[in-house]
């Protein structure tokens, strides 16, 4: 999958609602959820390939994406401004703007 240009901080994204049976590190609770790009961490070896003993090339961009807790959990009892920042590889992110 071609990743396109680098996403910018503040850009709205949706986590792809994929449910692959193969190895990946995208938590189930984020699939299909919307968040905001916090930071691009740079390019990293592809763990989805490394899981199978592959060197993990080409490298993929890894982003920190911020999700409001109240959007993830309907019964969230913490302060309203709380958020969680999760590292996600670029091919999991669909830009919304």
């Amino acid at each position: 999958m071609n990743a396109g240009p680098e996403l910018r901080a503040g850009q709205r994204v949706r986590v792809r609602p994929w449910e692959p049976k193969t190895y990946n590190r995208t938590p189930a609770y984020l699939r299909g959820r919307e968040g905001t790009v916090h930071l691009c961490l740079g390019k990293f070896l592809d763990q989805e390939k490394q899981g199978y003993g592959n060197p993990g090339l080409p490298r993929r961009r890894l982003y920190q994406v911020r999700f409001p807790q109240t959007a993830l959990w309907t019964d969230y009892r913490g302060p309203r401004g709380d958020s969680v920042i999760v590292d996600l590889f670029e091919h999991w992110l669909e830009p919304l703007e």
Partner: protein
Amino acid sequence: MPAVHDLGGKPTPAPIDRKAEDVNFFARRVTALVTMLRDTRLRAFQTDEFRRSIEGLPPEQYLSLSYYEKWIQGLRRLLVSKGVLTDEEIEARVREVEARLAAKPGAPKGKNR
């Protein structure tokens, strides 16, 4: 349906136990074994292969084992799948060690097989 290890957001029957794992002698040995096989010249596997092996343990095993028990079972599964060791070799060695310990009075019983 998320895999067994993907627990985020799932209800729990009891409050989450936030105590750190007891780093006992067994834990240290398992860590040494994994580190030696992965990070020295041996490079028998990469971190994500090891994680994939642990996450692929049978669900009932994944949910009942302690942290380092998951490590040793995940390591075993990985080394067998990569052809480094066979189940027969491991079982034969375990029987050998058990026999040696049984012959030694007062020796600990092999629990973390």
